[in-house]
């Protein structure tokens, strides 16, 4: 079954994919720094009228839960917020782009969070991307 990105169903399937990824379990086992929010910027041309936030409650190599929220205000409680356009997130979800590299290129922005911590967990970030590629995804375009 395919899940539309972004959607509540997709982020729920993403949680399952993260928890099924042994690589993430190992690389993220020391992560105790709180939830990570992925924010897709509003893009009326594809029906995204307000920014969409997907919060991953990751802790010690496990995704304990997810939240799907409309509007940037809904993610403010997350200690780490990464923002990008739909096309940029699509590249990440397809495994064509690494989030750290995308940040260096200015394609994704760490809007909130401690950058040295993100860099220390670079392999964990990679495994989150690997997990995303395992979700059967239907894109808006």
């Amino acid at each position, binding site marked *: 079954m395919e899940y539309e990105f972004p959607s509540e169903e997709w982020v729920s399937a993403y949680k399952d994919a993260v928890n099924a990824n042994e690589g993430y379990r190992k690389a993220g086992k020391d992560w105790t720094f709180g939830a990570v929010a992925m924010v897709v910027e509003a893009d009326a041309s594809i029906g995204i009228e307000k920014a969409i936030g997907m919060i991953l409650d990751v802790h010690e190599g496990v995704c304990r839960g997810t939240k799907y929220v409309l509007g940037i205000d809904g993610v403010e409680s997350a200690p780490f917020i990464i923002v990008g356009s739909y096309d940029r997130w699509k590249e990440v979800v397809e495994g064509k782009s690494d989030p750290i590299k995308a940040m260096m290129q200015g394609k994704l*922005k760490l809007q909130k969070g401690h950058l*040295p911590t993100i860099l220390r967990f670079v392999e964990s970030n990679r495994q989150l991307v690997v997990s995303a590629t395992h979700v059967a995804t239907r894109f808006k375009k």
Partner: protein
Amino acid sequence: MIQLATDAEGNGFATMLSELLAQNLADHPEKRRDFDRLTGRIALVVDDIDVSITLCFEAGRLTVHGGIYGMPDVTITASSDDIMKMSLMELVPKVGLPDPRGQFTREIFSASQGGKIHMHGALLHMPLMLRLTRVMSINR
């Protein structure tokens, strides 16, 4: 203390490195001594994503420019992976030199010896390079 030049607007790597250095100095105030003694220009060229920046240090002040700015004292050319690994290099406690026992330090040395990282001008500016390494590394 750290500012982005107008030519760095929209340069994600410039923003990232500025934030990394600012957070590093906040987390490790002992690095401030090295930061205050840094004077010189270092260009970082990320060859796999075609992005470059120039760090202009002036004894306690840093301006980050987008692209190559002026005549850098040192130019480091490397992949995005290796540039980021430089910030993870392990340091010998108290001494502050790269620790050859550390995984990331070994990977950087190996990439440098293998020609994957080019450091033009580094040998002529060793104090500058060592201080940059200490200030940039997220480790003590």
